[in-house]
Structure formats: structure tokens, C-alpha cells
């Protein structure tokens, strides 16, 4: 009897682990590399263009405001490029969309501090 319930507990743990992997799948960097890389590559394109678009828009706006045509756009295109590459650099190095340079730490300390992990799942 005891043996059986031990086996059941083991099965439940294994299933929970699988579930956790499905939920975090492709996002924690440790999953299947191929799938992860493709997602990152797809993301990089929009990230670069989006930052560039913001840069050009800001430049255009500054030009209209301060009457400095064309210098605002010229300056902010470069800023936009820099921000775009920053976006890509962050998503490629697992810092994701963080502003600032601290790498994503797997949230072990956060969970340990709260200590009632079982309740939320």
C-alpha cells in the first residue's frame, strides 16, 4: 500500500515537471535549441524595425518642434538603430525586454523567500 502511494507521488512529481516545462517551454533558454533560435530570429526583425520607426518618428517630431529640419531625423535614426540593436542584443542574451543591463536570473531566490509555492500552482 505504502509502496503504491510512493509511486503515485513520484508520478505526480514527474507530471508536474512536464507541465512546468510545457508552460515555460522555449522561453527559459534551456529548452530545445532549434525551436528557441527560430523564435529569437523572428523576433529580432520586428525589434530592430520597431526601434528604428520610433527613432524616425521622434526625429520628425523634434524637427517640427524646434525647426531643425533635417538634423533631428538624422540624429534620431542613429539613436533608433542603436536602440534596435540594443533590443536584439537583449533578447539574444536572455535579458529579454529588460531595460537596464542585469541578466535574467532564474527566479530561485524569489520563490524561496515566499515559501508557499505549492498553493499557487
Amino acid at each position, binding site marked *: 500500500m505504502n509502496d503504491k502511494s510512493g509511486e503515485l507521488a513520484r508520478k505526480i512529481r514527474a507530471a508536474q515537471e512536464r507541465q512546468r516545462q510545457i508552460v515555460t517551454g522555449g522561453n527559459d533558454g534551456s529548452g530545445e535549441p532549434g525551436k528557441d533560435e527560430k523564435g529569437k530570429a523572428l523576433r529580432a526583425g520586428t525589434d530592430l*524595425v520597431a526601434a528604428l520607426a*520610433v*527613432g524616425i518618428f521622434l526625429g520628425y517630431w523634434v524637427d517640427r518642434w524646434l525647426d531643425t529640419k533635417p538634423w533631428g531625423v538624422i540624429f534620431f535614426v542613429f539613436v533608433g538603430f*542603436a536602440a534596435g540593436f540594443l533590443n536584439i542584443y537583449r533578447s539574444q542574451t536572455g535579458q*529579454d525586454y529588460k531595460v537596464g543591463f542585469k541578466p535574467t536570473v532564474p527566479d530561485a531566490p*524569489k520563490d524561496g523567500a515566499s515559501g508557499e509555492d505549492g498553493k*499557487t500552482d
Partner: protein
Amino acid sequence: MANPLQQFVIKPLIPLNIGGYDVSFTQSSLWMGLAVISATLLMTLSMRSKSVVPNRWQNVTEMIYEFVAGMVHEALGHEGRKYFAFVFSVFMIVLMGNMLGMIPYSFTFTSHIVVTGTLALMVFLTATLVGIFRHGLHFFTLFLPAGLPIFLAPLIILIEIVSYLSRPISLSVRLFANMVAGHTMMKVFAGFSVMMAASSGLGMAGAVLPLLINTALVGLEILIAFIQAYVFAVLTCMYLKDAIELH
């Protein structure tokens, strides 16, 4: 052959005009309403029996709930419970929009940048306001990386702000572009089938090939519909995390 982009044209069902603005009830509005209604019905009706051993519908609801709850917990920890309802709503409206769009003759409202842009802007503003309310002016240190030489600060802060502002754009463009590309591709292959079937001889027999590809594409599109909703919700969590933790 019909224009593959014709499917994205907005058609007003009930023309309305308030104060010079066109606020017609369009087919896009109709499908948005249907998405909300179907999500609500799915959540309420399937949980009516509340049995310990769930039937299929209850199982689906519980899976969706646990999926989002796991995602929020993973990203935000215990702090995230407050934001669960928000993330869940965003996830459901995007998921329902994408999935209902897979029904033939329906309309995919997430294929319009104005819809995805509004959703992304809402997420962006929520995250920013949460950050400001939680941390006050301290929130703006987000744009100043630690240990930065002071003479670089003006340039880096500018770059960080542009990077921050680009987030709602890349978030909305990603969803919108995926939906437009997928639905256009399906229409193009369907068009090939129709054109080949209309020709004679060998072309007629070959019409089955684009049909086969289209069958595979429908499966792929359903996968993408889910993945894009997932990505949208995950990034919502990420942005909230930035605002809450303020590293």
C-alpha cells in the same frame, strides 16, 4: 481570382456617424463581440458542473486557466496574482480573435494593426502606470543602467527611452504581421487551386496539390494563432515584471 487581401477589408454592417466620426458597427466589431461572448460562454458554461472529474469542456477551461496562471507565476511570482485577471483577459481576447479567424467566412480582427496596436498600447500604458504608482519618480531610474559613466548618460538614456517606446510597436506588429501573412498565404494557395481547377487537362489534376498545401497551412495557422496569443501574454508579463521589480 479574388484578391487575397480582400478578406481584410472592413465592411460596415450598421452605418453610424457621431459628430462627424465614422463609428459604424463593422464586421470587425461583430467578431470582437463574438470573441468576448464566446470566451465568456466557454468560461461560465463549462464550469457549471464544477465536477472533480472534469468533462471535456471543463478540462479545456482548466487547462487555459492553469496555462495562464503558470505563465504569470513564472514571470511575476506571488506578486503576479494581482495582474492575473488582466493577463488572462488579454490572452483570451487575442486567442479568441485568432481562433475565430480560422473559421471559414469569418473575420480575423487581430489582422488589423489598429486593433493590435490598441491592445499593445493598453498593455504598455498599464505596465508604465503600474511602475509609476509603485515606485513614483524612482521608476525613471529604469532608463539609467547601473554603473554608467556620467558623460555617456544623455546618449544612453535617449537610447533606452527609444528602446522602451519601441516595445508596444514590436508587440503589435508581431501579432498583426503574423495574422495578415498567414491568412494571405492561405488565400493565395486556395486561389491557385481554383485557377488550376478552372483550366483543362493536367492543370485540373494538379489542382489537388495546392489544396494539400493549404490543408497543412490551416494546421500551421491554428498553431500560430495559439503561439501568437501566448507570445502576447508572455510579453505582457515581461513588461509588468519590469515595472514591478525595477532592477
